[in-house]
Structure formats: C-alpha cells, structure tokens
C-alpha cells in the first residue's frame, strides 16, 4: 500500500509542488504544505493560497474511508457557523457525499481537486463576494437529510426515512414495493440509488444516521408509519 501512496503522492506533486509526504508505514501518513492554485467556477477565478494537511487513513484508497483535510494556516476562522471544526478539519460535505465524490477518483490528486479545492474556493468566494457559490448544507442531521432528499429525489420526510430504514435493516428486496409510495417495485424505483449508498456506508453508520433522523422527526411530532420503523435499530438501541 505504501508504494501506492507514494505513486499517488508523485502525481499530486505534479500539480501541487509545495506539498510534502509525512509519516511512514507505522505512523499516520499525511500530506502537508502550502497549496497555491487558481480555481474557476462559472467564470469566476480565485487564487487559493492555503496551508493544508491531508491525513491518509490506513484503509486508503478505500472510498469508504476517505482522507481527512485540514486547514492549518488559521486563515479560516474556527467559528460554529463555518464548515470547519475547531481542530481545523474541513467539513467538505455530508459524509455519504464525501465518500461518493472520493470514489469518482480515489487518489490524492482526486481528493484534492474534487473535494478540497471546491471547499477552499467556496470559502474564498464567501470572503470576496459574501456568499457561498454552490450553496451549503445545514449543520448536523438537517444537512444529512437535505443531501439524501436531493440524492434520492424525494420531498417527503416519511418517504425519506422509510428508504433509509431499508438500508438500516439490510432489508433490500428488489421485488418489494418501494417505500417512497410510487407503487413501483424497489428495483424499478429507488433501488439503484439505495444500493449505491450501501456501497459506502456500513450498516452501523446507516443505523446512526437513521437514528438521528428518527429522533429529529419524532421531536417534531411526526407520526411515522410502521414501514418507517427499523427493527434492527429498535433491537440495538431502544431496549436499553
């Protein structure tokens, strides 16, 4: 795996000559240094000069475990409203979205160009013009739900949680009716999208996301039908 990381780093270096590869087989591997590139979106070109670190997980380049990016120059303020944690790690997108984007090009260069650069561009754009150029997600479970709503193309929260329930229970059957209420079979409706999500999120992660959604909808007083209630979630978490 080390040769692979080194090869990927070589490729990254072609476009970002001021980065260094840190760590060894035993320790945490990471890429660190200054990036200084221009990026363009809808004819607006911005220069991005940032000091960054990208932690490379042990499982690299498995898209289920994407790298983690940090802004280490202290340029991005660590405020609660921004998409950055106090330790400088960047909240590039909703978790499932990060994995899917990384899967498009699971290399260091791909991660940088597809995920990190757009994030830094958005920050610079907001500094310069006062707004986020590609929009942003709400924080927490709201943002996760926004992403799923968009990805699964449903507007109804009951349909949404019922679809996630299928994954949380590992209860995918192509010939079952799609829980979105379209009247079609799953395999002809939301099936392929659900299976795509399943590629990147383990059942454990899905149960957690499901639980957060459940809590959120429950708090808002929404009455949920039976096929929105996860048996595995009830068994694992509700007994205690």
């Amino acid at each position: 795996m080390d040769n692979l990381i080194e090869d990927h780093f070589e490729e990254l270096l072609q476009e970002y000559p001021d980065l260094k590869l840190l760590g060894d087989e035993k320790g945490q591997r990471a890429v660190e240094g200054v990036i200084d590139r221009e990026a363009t979106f809808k004819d607006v070109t911005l220069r991005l000069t940032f000091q960054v670190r990208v932690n490379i997980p042990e499982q690299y380049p498995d898209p289920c475990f994407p790298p983690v990016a940090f802004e280490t120059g202290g340029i991005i303020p660590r405020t609660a409203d921004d998409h950055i944690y106090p330790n400088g790690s960047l909240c590039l997108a909703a978790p499932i979205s990060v994995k899917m984007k990384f899967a498009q090009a699971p290399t260091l260069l791909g991660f940088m160009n597809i995920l990190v650069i757009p994030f830094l561009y958005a920050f610079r754009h907001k500094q310069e013009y006062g707004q986020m150029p590609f929009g942003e997600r709400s924080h927490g479970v709201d943002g996760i739900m926004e992403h799923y709503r968009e990805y699964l193309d449903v507007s109804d929260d009951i349909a949404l949680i019922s679809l996630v329930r299928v994954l949380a229970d590992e209860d995918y059957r192509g010939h079952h009716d799609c829980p979105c209420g379209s009247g079609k079979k799953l395999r002809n409706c939301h099936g392929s999208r659900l299976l795509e999500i399943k590629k990147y999120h383990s059942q454990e992660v899905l149960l957690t996301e499901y639980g957060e959604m459940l809590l959120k909808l429950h708090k808002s007083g929404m009455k949920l039908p039976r096929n929105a209630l996860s048996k595995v979630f009830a068994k694992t978490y509700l007994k205690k």
Partner: protein
Amino acid sequence: MPNELVAGYNRVLEQLAKELDISPSKYQQAVGRFNSVKEWLDVGKYDGCVADPRIYIQGSFRLGTVIRPLKDGKESDYDIDLVCELQARKVSCAPRNIKSDVGDRLKENETYRKMLTPEGRRCWSINYAEEDGIGFHMDVLPSVPEGEREVGEIARMGVPQGLAESSIAITHKESDVSYDWRPSNPEGYAFWFEQAMRPAFEAMKGREKSAIFESNKRLFATVEAVPDQLVRTPLQRVVQILKRHRDLRFVGHEWEGDKPISMIITTLAAKLYRNEADVYTALHNIVEQLDEHAQLLKSAYGLREDLASLRLIGRTPDGKWNMPNPVNPAENFADRWHENDNRKARAFFMWVSWVKEDLIGVLGKGSLGEVNESVQRLFGGKIALLAATQSAPAVITASRNRPEPIEIKDPPKPWRRIG
C-alpha cells in the same frame, strides 16, 4: 486591531520563518559533515600545542538563525562556519603557521584535499556536493586563544569575564607573505545571543521539541534526541524573517552593496528582544524601536532618552557611527556607515522603514486572507523558496510557472456535524 487577526498573522509569520529555516534532515546532515571534519582535525599533530584543538560551529548555524540560501531562485549550498582553535600561545606562534598547520592537516586527508578550495583570507573551505543537489561549504577558521592582556582589556570595557575569555585571535592574510592576527569572539557572541533569549527558550523548549519529534520520527529516536539547536525562539524567527526580507528587498537595488549585514540585524534584534512569547509581538517591538533611531540621521542628539540609554546605535560628534560588538566593544560594526554621505546608515534605516511597512503596516490591509496574501507575495508565493530572486521581488509571483486554474464541476456542498 482585532486580536484574532493578530493571532492569525502571528501564525503566518511563524510559518514563514519555518519555510525559511533549514529542514531537520538537512541539519542532521550538516552535523554529520561537521563531526567528520572535527574528528579528523582533533587527532592531528600541531606544533607548539599544549592540548587538543577546540573545534566548534559559529555563525548562523550556531545561533539558530540560518536561512536557506537562495541562488538563482533555487535553494543553494549552505555555509557552515567552523572554528578550529589550536591550543597554542598567541605570543609564541605566528599566524601564518597556524593557518598552514590547519590547512596541512586537512590536506593529509585524501577526500578533503580534493574538496578544498584555494586558500582564503581567513579560512580554508571544503566544498561538499550532496546527492539532493544542496551542498555545504564548510569554512574552517584557524585560530588560537586570545592573549591574556587582550582578554583583560575586553573585560575592562564591560564585557562579562566569562564571555571575554572565549575571545580568539584569527589569522588574516594580507598578502602571500604577510599574515596578521585579528580579534574575534564567535563563541562569546553565541553565549551572549543565547542569554538574550534564555527565558523564552526554556519556556518553549518542551513543546517545540515534541512538535519537531512528531514530524521527524525518521530522524530522532526520542523527543530527548531532538537537539536544542533545532528549537527556535521568537527572536530567532524574527532574525530569519528580517534576513530574508533584506535579501529580497535589496535585490537589484542601487544600494544592494550597502545592505545591512546579518551581524548588525542579529545584534540589534537580540538587544531589543524582551522575551516576547510570539513572533509578531517581538517583531513589532523590535522594528518600532529601530525605526525611532532613524532620527540619528538628522541629529546625533535627538534620540529619546530611554532609547539612547539602550546604546544600540550611537553617533560621535564628528558624525561617525558606533555600534559595538557586544562581546568586543573595540569592534565597531558600523565603522563604515559614514562613508559616501552615510550611505550604509541610510540604507539601514530605509530597510527598517520597508520592514515596518511590509511586515507591520500590512496588518491594516484588512482580513487575514489579504494580509497573508500580501506577505506571501513579498516572500514569493511559497515563501520565495522556488521563486526567482534575480528580478525584483514584485515580479517573482508573476514569473512563476503557474498551472492552469482548476475548473470546478459539480461541487459538493459544505456541511458540518453539530457540536
């Protein structure tokens, strides 16, 4: 000024200085080269010597103010200055013999003989080419301990006895046949410099060493194995930044030949350092006080009393300048400042005003992003390491080979977990 901006700018300056610094691996390589030469010189036989020679590093390597040398825009060879102090009595030996004894010993080694350059005025130089393309010039400075009478005189001028005692006499080649002694005290100077930052060093040593260890586990077995010489106090960082700023700002300037020497920058900064805990505050305080000295250009007496009492830079009634070497007051670093209508003095204060504008005034420019960009531009994108220095600094960024902008397609939307 919002504290957040200052804190952010301080991080920018710290990072800048780190980029200018020698890397720990290159430092280790230099130490390896030094140790080999030292071992070789150690076991030589030198006429009239009562003990083994003392061999130690001096200059910016010793002071921890070394910056990566730039030549034609690339990191180039480092100079390591090494003192070879033969334990002979100054009164009973000739400078010419001391110089040739050390040179002969080096030439006895087949490897060093091939790497030696022709005899210099004061040094023997060994040129190391290294595999990574960044070599070392090791300057070996032959010397003997300074005579007792001279040491006594230096102590009488107010230099602490302990510092005065490390004075040496170095050889100076006037012509092929004529050699003379010159006073010097590189080790005393290093002690003096270390004292000026001792509290800051003690306060930060532990934290700094762990950080160096964490990012260089291939080089050091334990945190304790990280040498003191790799810890950098804000004073050392400030000197590094000032030295590079001077180099960049004087490139192509008509007064390039009169730019302030590193020794002056280092001495003044150390005298003004009050063990500030961060680079920005240290830089700010040092530069403000230096700038106030500019009125010495107009009048020898106009200086505020508290500044005058620091005895940093003085002027004599005949208009000459005085800046004593702290470990040998008879040596005046500013002995040529009055020449050509005070050109060196004017170049110095012009540079101080540049520093004030470029590195302090820049804070008024707005957001941290803008401040950062301005500093990056001055020091050349990635801090001038890869940039050309042959042209004026402003051109550096433009001349750099920039890849095409990245076109962003289908970007993800930023999110974050709550809490």
